[in-house]
């Protein structure tokens, strides 16, 4: 018995020596950061802003009642420092609760910072163990803090709204994705751009809207492209998310078509030191809306639609690649494809100056659209038979 007690004591004492993790903290002593924004300030200083929910106003207590009293359920604080961590310490100095970063799921990068290069500030994000690599990263025109102070109507915090929006949109970039894009030669980073806009009709809430995509060369922002200029980009994403386009037949008649499946196949060729890409695109389309008198039961009409769609897709991809060439930002990873097919040439010639090489490339596009489904009723049921044709 005595022996067992001694053994137990030894084990227990070892436990204290080994662990050293006396970091107990109660949930009501923490400030849980939901979203954080980073901005560039003059004189090379950084501003960090955090969005913290005020848990006491979150309900859970009985009664509640005054939901419309206008009290915000969150609190945004920001500070300027020479480093991100210094700014953080400044906020902490006036915050009664310990700032807790493990739950922040949104990082907003301000425009200035993005233009200036953001790898410096991202170091802390990757180094600090409380940060999650699964947090989504977005940027905004102007100051990042503006997104944090917006109060959307549906969600309790704009951070939550941003997260849902980013997840829904076709282009989602997590911290891990960004780190990969930044560190891999042959691909450049993209980050979705969000903006805080007034709700329509105008209310007191500020809604978050996805307005475009930021294109980067290395870690610097080169341009912000409108989402509609980059329809082609969505076909090149690793995880295709369905999206819709409007297909005009003539001035009056148009259709809305949804691409339910999409796949891009890129094959590079090097001919006499010249890089040429063969791009094959396969998509499945579904007619969502038919605002024309087109009889979709007829095969020739379907064929016609398919040709029109092919044209439209080609135009979209053309625009995307033009943008890529113009801004020398390889957002779809043409360089990676090249390196896989021609590893030697890539290593020797292109790797180090891929962005300069980009404007010189040529390409051809072959698209194939499969009209999978054109709706249950082929004609507009509200229009009478004789009116038609």
């Amino acid at each position, binding site marked *: 018995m005595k022996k067992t007690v001694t053994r137990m004591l030894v084990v227990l004492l070892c436990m204290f020596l080994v662990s050293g993790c006396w970091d107990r903290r109660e*949930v*009501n002593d923490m400030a*849980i950061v939901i979203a954080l924004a980073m901005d560039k300030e003059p004189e090379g200083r950084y501003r960090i802003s955090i969005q913290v929910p005020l*848990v006491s106003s979150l309900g859970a*207590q009985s009664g509640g009642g005054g939901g419309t009293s206008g009290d915000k359920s969150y609190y945004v604080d920001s500070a300027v420092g020479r480093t991100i961590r210094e700014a953080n310490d400044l906020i902490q100095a006036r915050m009664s609760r310990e700032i807790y970063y493990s739950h922040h799921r949104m990082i907003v990068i301000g425009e200035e910072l993005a233009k200036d290069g953001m790898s410096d500030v991202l170091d802390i994000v990757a180094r600090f163990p409380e940060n999650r690599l699964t947090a989504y990263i977005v940027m905004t025109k102007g100051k990042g803090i503006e997104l944090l102070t917006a109060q959307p109507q549906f969600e309790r915090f704009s951070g939550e709204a941003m997260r849902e929006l980013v997840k829904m949109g076709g282009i989602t970039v997590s911290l891990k994705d960004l780190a990969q894009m930044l560190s891999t030669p042959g691909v450049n980073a993209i980050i979705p751009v969000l903006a805080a806009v007034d709700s329509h009709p105008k209310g007191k809430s500020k809604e978050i809207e996805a307005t475009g995509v930021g294109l980067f060369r290395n870690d610097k922002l080169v341009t912000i492209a409108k989402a509609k200029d980059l329809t082609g980009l969505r076909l090149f994403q690793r995880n295709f998310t369905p999206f819709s386009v409007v297909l005009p037949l003539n001035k009056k008649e148009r259709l809305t078509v949804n691409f339910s499946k999409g796949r891009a196949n890129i094959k590079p060729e090097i001919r006499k030191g010249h890089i040429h890409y063969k791009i094959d695109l396969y998509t499945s389309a579904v007619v969502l809306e038919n605002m024309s008198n087109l009889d979709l039961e007829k095969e020739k009409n379907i064929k016609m639609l398919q040709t029109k769609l092919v044209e439209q897709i080609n135009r979209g991809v053309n625009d995307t690649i033009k943008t890529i060439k113009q801004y020398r930002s390889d957002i779809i990873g043409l360089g990676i494809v090249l390196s896989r097919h021609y590893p030697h040439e890539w290593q020797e010639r292109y790797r180090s100056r891929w962005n300069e090489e980009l404007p010189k490339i040529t390409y051809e596009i072959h698209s194939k659209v499969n009209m999978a489904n054109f709706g249950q009723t082929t004609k507009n049921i509200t229009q009478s038979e004789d009116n038609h044709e």
Partner: protein
Amino acid sequence: MVGDEMKFKKKDKMKELIETMNSCSLIELEGIPISPQLDDNVDLLKKMFSDCSDFVIREFRQKNSVRAIAVFVDGLIDTKEVNSALKSLMVLEDGDEDIKVIEEALLPVSQMGRVDDYKKLLQAVLSGDTGILVEGNTEALTLGIRGAEKRSVNEPEGEAVVRGPREGFIENIRTNTSMLRRKLRTPRLKMKSLVVGRETNTNLVVAFLDGIADPEIVQEVTGRISKINMDAVLESGYIEEMIQDNTYSPFPQLMYSERPDTVAAALLEGRVAIFVDGTPMVLIAPVTFWMMMQASEDYYERFQMATLVRLLRYIFLIISLITPALYVAITTYHQQMLPTTLLLSIAAARESIPFPAIVEAFIMEISFEALREAGIRLPKTVGQAVSILGALVVGQAAVQAGIVSAPMVIVVSLTGIASFTIPHFNASISLRMLRFPIMIAASILGIYGMLVALLLILGHMANLRSFGVPYLSPLAPMSIGDLKDVLLRAPWSMMEKRPSFLGVQNARRMNDGYANSIQERGGQSGVTGNRHQSEEGQS
């Protein structure tokens, strides 16, 4: 001459004994012979049982004037039957004074014994027999005509079932053994009788199936029981604590049951049952941890349901053991593990709570244990008041007053419900106890501490033995064939063998291929097959 001297000395010794006799334990009477002089016996008994108002010495004469006495304890005998036995003794004629003749030819009593010393005589009399002493005999008769008051056989309240027999053991050991015998009508069912307790002289019966149970285990059980030297055994718990392997372990190393079918099933698996007079709880040894998680109904319900219910119990076993600890660990150390929204709701609920999570958990757990304890002891009518008060005070009022948070109430009530799913009460108490050290470990070191505590417990369980059988067998040490009755309950047709880790001698439950032959004959094909056969027979 020498013989006379011896006789004289013996006589002297008897006189001396009568003079010095005081009330004493039965063990001290070992080897004191019954005197041929009836008066000596009467004197000795009267002295021994002075001030015992319920002890009756009835003197009477046979027809030939040979004196005799009947001794019995009032209330333990069946008066009517004893009267008729005395009646037939009183009409005895010459030459019928030899006790052997009386026993063999003259007394119409089915249960009778002959004893020659006081210890045996008084043991029988104090258990309810009637002792007959006849002048000139050095032996006495014990008539087994017992008639003490006893409770009728009822449904066992501690182990209720939906499907299965509804009889439970009672306090009378004979009734209990008869109930077991009704289940196992085989000469293999052996019942060794033992007496334990200097003052209580409690009857014990060690029951086992000869040829199935491991003789070494039977030997070990009877050996340990006979080493007990206590003054009293009032319940089987006394025996349990005296013969268990590890006194300091929180885990029960013997199981008890008040269901004859459970005991019979245990014997059929090669275990040993210990009946103790005066309690309906029959001990079963050796046991494994998994037995504590099994209910008799598992074997009566269809196997799919039984298996699912068993899995449910294991899940809730884990819940009852670690939920409060896990809650404390996660909310104080590992907040990143929670979904954000859940963390925010917990934070909101805890906003106004003045205590750290561990203190809160302790307050709630202890008050829950108190409620449960209060509910057991109180009469049923008052018990209801306790539950209302408890639900109001500990539940709602405490949350509204901001003393404990609502999530903590949920955790504690979930734990409480989970601990009720464990079928055997003694196992569930040990888990209730272990919850607290795990909680403390979790509050100091988080999930790491919780796991260390769990590992210590697991290591202890793996180390523990019940009568030489490892406590976690058949899982550790692994014996794959026996696993079909641990986490699952295989259909009976597949459980052809008894558990091997108990060292059973006769391992087969069924004949070879029995299940297969049933399956071949069963179902639709079997029916048509039979019809075909009978048609053939007719033609």
